[in-house]
């Protein structure tokens, strides 16, 4: 299992991340990637920019914990998580999650799980600048509900 967890202000390149994952093992049959982008609009308000604040060391540790939980749950060959911090503009890339596995079900489920946990467990604080006003983003109920899918007793979706 190869793990890559990065917190950085620089942009990332999906092609590089994908190449790294697919070349890890000849038994890999599925690579799922998720890229999160800054939307131009949130809750009907036009967005000028987003700022993500992190706590060096702790933010990386919180991401590592989330990846570890996914590794324990599915048979994976590789996981990469990159989270950008600092000021971001609409259409900028914010977050990358990539998972390589022998089978597609494990790759899809692990990537989906990683994003749900990352949204609620990664030590990051997001503020939005809109119409010259800065406001902190509130935790969404939908993100909390999304988490419950992974803790219910039924088999994973």
């Amino acid at each position, binding site marked *: 299992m190869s793990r890559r967890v990065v917190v950085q202000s620089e942009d990332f390149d999906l092609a590089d991340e994908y190449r790294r994952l697919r070349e890890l093992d000849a038994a890999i049959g599925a690579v799922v990637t998720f890229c999160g982008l800054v939307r131009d609009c949130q809750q009907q308000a036009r967005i000028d920019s987003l700022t*993500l*604040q992190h*706590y060096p060391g*702790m933010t990386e540790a919180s991401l590592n914990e989330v990846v570890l939980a996914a590794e324990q749950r599915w048979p994976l060959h590789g996981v990469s998580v990159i989270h950008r911090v600092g000021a971001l503009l609409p259409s900028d890339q914010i*977050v990358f999650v990539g998972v390589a596995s022998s089978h597609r079900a494990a790759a899809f489920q692990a990537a989906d799980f990683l994003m749900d946990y990352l949204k*609620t467990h990664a030590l*990051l*604080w997001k503020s939005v600048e809109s119409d010259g006003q800065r406001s*902190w*983003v509130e935790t969404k109920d939908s993100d909390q509900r999304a988490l419950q899918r992974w803790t219910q007793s039924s088999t994973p979706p």
Partner: protein
Amino acid sequence: MIKLLFFGRLGDSAATAPELFEASEGLTPSAVRYALAIEHPRLVEALLEPQVLVSIDRVIADWNQPLTDGCELAFLPPVTGG
């Protein structure tokens, strides 16, 4: 002295809060929190939210864990990454 850090919305309201807090025997994050809330009315609401976590030297800690001189105490409001 104890180094204080405030993240997210707490960072805004903590603009006037101190960056250092005098260490003393038996001091806990909980005691620091209440002392700050009393002295900085703008911090009260955000700081006393039940979802706020605390870390000591970059490890999530209990509110009643004793603080040692020179440590870094951080107040972490609910996260909103991704």
